[in-house]
């Protein structure tokens, strides 16, 4: 059957340009900068930080250019034309038939994330110039930060899964370095290890998923597209071709989603994210807004066809992605209520917002989820940097809201203003960016028929508004407490005072931060306010820029009747319509081959009535939380203070939240202890009782038998035989008895004997 697009002959070629063709330079620049900082950074006047900042600015310029030219490319396309991604690929290495490529895959999704990552990284690096001034590992910090951004950028524009995995792992490594930046403190290095290992649990899923996809897709992609089974374009097309075995693609999708859970801190593996706050604040900001945690969401968005087909998105009443996302939204929002550390509140808020993105992706709201990545990056980075600004200049390096903050709105007007804007954006209040993205997700989830999950989304919005109000109240309103009141007390929460040389700042009380800190804050708050208008659905079709630029477009594909007469062609929307998939699965295709690359998705129609309901819920959350905070923290209302101590049920719930649902206990105490300890104990017991027992018993019983023979049989006849057998048994016994000798050759002997016996058993079984 010959498939080609209706207008393939008349379509004008798509516009392209230098920035699009050379987008691969975007991660290369930070990579080179990283090497330079490591090599010569310490000898430079600014200790290597200038190289980091310069490389990020260069990446930002390159990605801005690429974004501009991508918009031109979209505009040059015809109304219903599929805008083909700009793909370049080189052979990286090959071995015995396997070919690993390296290259770029630039489409709307990668353009959005590239721009966000480069932008936030630049601001964070500028901010770090001031925040980490005088740190003892200043140069290494900038080196790791630069490589971290480079890894994320490489992952975002990867054209195949191998390069994707490379960027993914670089990020994992650098996050370990950055979270444990102040590793002298035990808690910090523990947090770094926890982050590393928790994410590694998920990484196994990524490896399994990539291998499964390669081995099942390679044949099809080679035949139809001439690319290997690692290629993202090939995998997407293969997933939608109706070719894959539904079980295989389901398991692959689940494996990949486990990787996303680990990286994006979704429900069972979210415990590492709040601990990652042990790193310097700029790191938390970068980690939580645009890089690292977004990588998991990005993986789902990038290989969306695999998840779409594998997990049957839109085809069933609920799927794994939605369920995990929904659970994450609620449980992490609840955890944010009991935190006293301002950064931990923000951390749980990030986990919760990532839950929204997952929920959106799982519910078929691809574009709103991607748009939420975009807006969330700005306001979350702003909130984290704001928290850093407070601790840097006002609260004496403490992040404890109850002890060291309060009443800061007068002394830190700029930080306060930017914080309020970002908080409103996070809560999803109308003109701010969060409204346009979060409400879109909730709206689309409901529109696609998932009413339960829409209610969960609204509940999450209510909780978000409430805990952010609580945090804002504790930080900026009420009476100044602790360090922000001028009492320079050192305490356990003093995360890094000993490492910073802020002697001057430490001498006087709270004040506004310097320009290097406030300018990034202001830029980010402007974007937190304005970035939502890029896809402002309430104002009509012409405002939906993001949808136009980012979402893959559907085109009609003409299918030639196999042997029909001339002119007997039928127009179908999807080449694979005859296959097992419904009509809505495949929406866009390339003119050349008629292969689909992205599923066709529905968009909810914006209604003010629905938006009003969610707005009302948000305001209700703010109001209730405000009143509660006022009563609890300022008025010290006797009915509320100590409520958790007095009412047992509430106390239990509170304790349950404070202990983080006992998940850490489950992982560390129960699982590690119940699995590792019994195994080692059982092994020891087995060694002591069974093995030794057998050997002793063997030797002893042979002795007994030989004694019996010695006594009962004529000694002169069988004397020599008995003696020999006893000696032999004894020698075998002594040879095999001491199994814990530490002798290498003995271990070798045991290893080889086990292998030999196993081999013999295998050979005999396989007859």
């Amino acid at each position: 059957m010959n498939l080609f697009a209706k207008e393939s002959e008349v379509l004008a070629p798509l516009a392209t340009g230098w920035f699009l063709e050379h987008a691969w330079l975007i991660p290369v620049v930070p990579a080179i900068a990283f090497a330079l900082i490591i090599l010569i950074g310490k000898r430079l006047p600014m200790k290597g930080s200038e190289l980091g900042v310069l490389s990020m600015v260069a990446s930002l310029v390159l990605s801005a250019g690429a974004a501009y030219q991508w918009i031109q490319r979209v505009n040059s396309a015809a109304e219903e034309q599929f805008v083909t991604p700009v793909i370049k690929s080189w052979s990286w290495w090959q071995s015995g038939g396997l070919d690993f490529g390296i290259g770029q895959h630039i489409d709307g999704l990668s353009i959005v994330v590239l721009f966000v990552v480069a932008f936030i990284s630049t601001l964070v690096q500028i901010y770090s110039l001031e925040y980490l001034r005088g740190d003892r590992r200043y140069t290494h910090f900038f080196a790791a930060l630069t490589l971290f951004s480079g890894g994320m950028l490489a992952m975002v524009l990867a054209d195949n899964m191998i390069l994707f995995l490379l960027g993914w792992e670089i990020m994992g490594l650098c996050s370990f370095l950055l979270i444990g930046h102040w590793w002298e403190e035990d808690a910090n290095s523990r947090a770094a290890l926890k982050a590393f290992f928790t994410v590694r649990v998920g990484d196994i899923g990524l490896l399994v998923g990539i291998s499964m996809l390669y081995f099942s897709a390679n044949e099809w992609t080679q035949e139809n597209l001439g690319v290997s089974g690692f290629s993202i374009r090939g995998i997407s097309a293969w997933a939608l071709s109706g070719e894959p075995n539904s079980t295989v693609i389901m398991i692959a999708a689940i494996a990949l989603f486990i990787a996303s859970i680990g990286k994006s801190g979704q429900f069972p593996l979210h415990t590492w994210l709040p601990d990652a706050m042990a790193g310097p604040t700029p790191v938390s900001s970068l980690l939580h807004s645009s890089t690292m945690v977004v990588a998991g969401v990005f993986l789902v968005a990038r290989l969306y066809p695999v998840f779409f087909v594998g997990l049957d998105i839109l085809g069933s009443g609920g799927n794994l992605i939605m369920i995990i996302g929904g659970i994450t939204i609620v449980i992490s929002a609840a955890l944010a209520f009991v935190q006293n550390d301002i950064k931990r509140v923000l951390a749980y808020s990030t986990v919760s917002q990532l839950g929204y993105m997952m929920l959106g992706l799982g519910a078929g709201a691809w574009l709103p989820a991607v748009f939420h990545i975009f807006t969330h990056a700005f306001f979350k980075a702003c909130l984290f940097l704001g928290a850093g600004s407070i601790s840097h200049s006002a609260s004496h390096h403490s992040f404890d809201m109850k002890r060291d903050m309060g009443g800061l709105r007068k002394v830190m007007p700029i930080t306060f203003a930017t914080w309020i804007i970002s908080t409103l954006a996070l809560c999803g209040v109308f003109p701010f960016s969060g409204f346009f993205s979060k409400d879109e997700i909730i709206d689309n989830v409901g529109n696609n028929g998932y009413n339960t999950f829409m209610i969960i989304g609204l509940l999450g919005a209510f909780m978000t508004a409430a805990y952010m109000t609580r945090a804002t109240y504790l930080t900026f309103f009420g009476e100044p407490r602790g360090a922000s009141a001028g009492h320079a007390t050192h305490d356990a929460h003093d995360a890094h005072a000993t490492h910073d040389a802020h002697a001057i700042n430490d001498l006087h009380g709270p004040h506004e931060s310097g320009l290097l800190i406030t300018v990034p804050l202001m830029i980010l708050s402007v974007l937190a306010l304005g970035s939502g208008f890029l896809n402002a659905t309430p104002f009509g079709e012409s405002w939906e820029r993001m949808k136009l630029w980012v979402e893959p477009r559907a085109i009609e594909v003409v299918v030639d009747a196999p042997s029909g007469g001339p002119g007997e062609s039928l127009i179908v929307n999807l080449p694979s319509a005859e296959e097992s998939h419904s009509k809505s699965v495949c929406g866009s295709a390339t003119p050349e081959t008629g292969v689909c690359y992205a599923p066709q998705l529905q968009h909810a129609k914006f209604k003010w009535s629905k938006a009003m309901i969610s707005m009302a819920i948000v305001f209700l959350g703010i109001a209730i939380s405000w009143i509660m905070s006022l009563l609890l923290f300022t008025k010290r209302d006797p009915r509320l203070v100590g409520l958790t101590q007095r009412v047992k049920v509430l106390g239990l719930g509170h304790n349950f939240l404070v202990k983080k649902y006992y998940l850490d206990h489950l992982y560390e105490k129960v699982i590690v202890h119940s699995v590792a300890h019994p195994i080692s104990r059982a092994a020891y017991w087995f060694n002591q009782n069974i093995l030794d027992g057998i050997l002793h018993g063997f030797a002893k019983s042979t002795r007994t038998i030989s004694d019996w023979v010695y006594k009962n049989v004529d000694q002169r006849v069988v004397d020599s035989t008995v003696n020999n057998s006893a000696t032999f048994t004894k020698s075998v016994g002594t040879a095999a008895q001491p199994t814990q000798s530490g002798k290498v050759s003995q271990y070798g002997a045991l290893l080889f004997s086990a292998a030999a016996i196993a081999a013999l058993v295998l050979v005999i079984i396989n007859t």
Partner: protein
Amino acid sequence: MYVNQFLFLASVLFCIGVYGVIARKNAVLILMSIELILNSVNINLLTFALRNGSTDGHTFALYIIAVAAAEVGVGLGLVLLVYRNKKTISVDDLSEMRG
């Protein structure tokens, strides 16, 4: 010539090598036994290369020879170091890992 005559020769050499690794306690002699094992693998590879009419086996045999050379170099370096520190190369005396 039968395929099996070469493969049998290789397995006999392999088993002798395994016996050597278990029975010897002089480190240099253990290294020699490992060389026996590696050579038996090479015979296998080349037999299968001839049987299947491909040259992949030759490539891998060469790689194994190179790896064996590296292994002997490092192995003897270790033996020298052990000798210098302990005045013995009997692996049974190196029981710091005793459990």
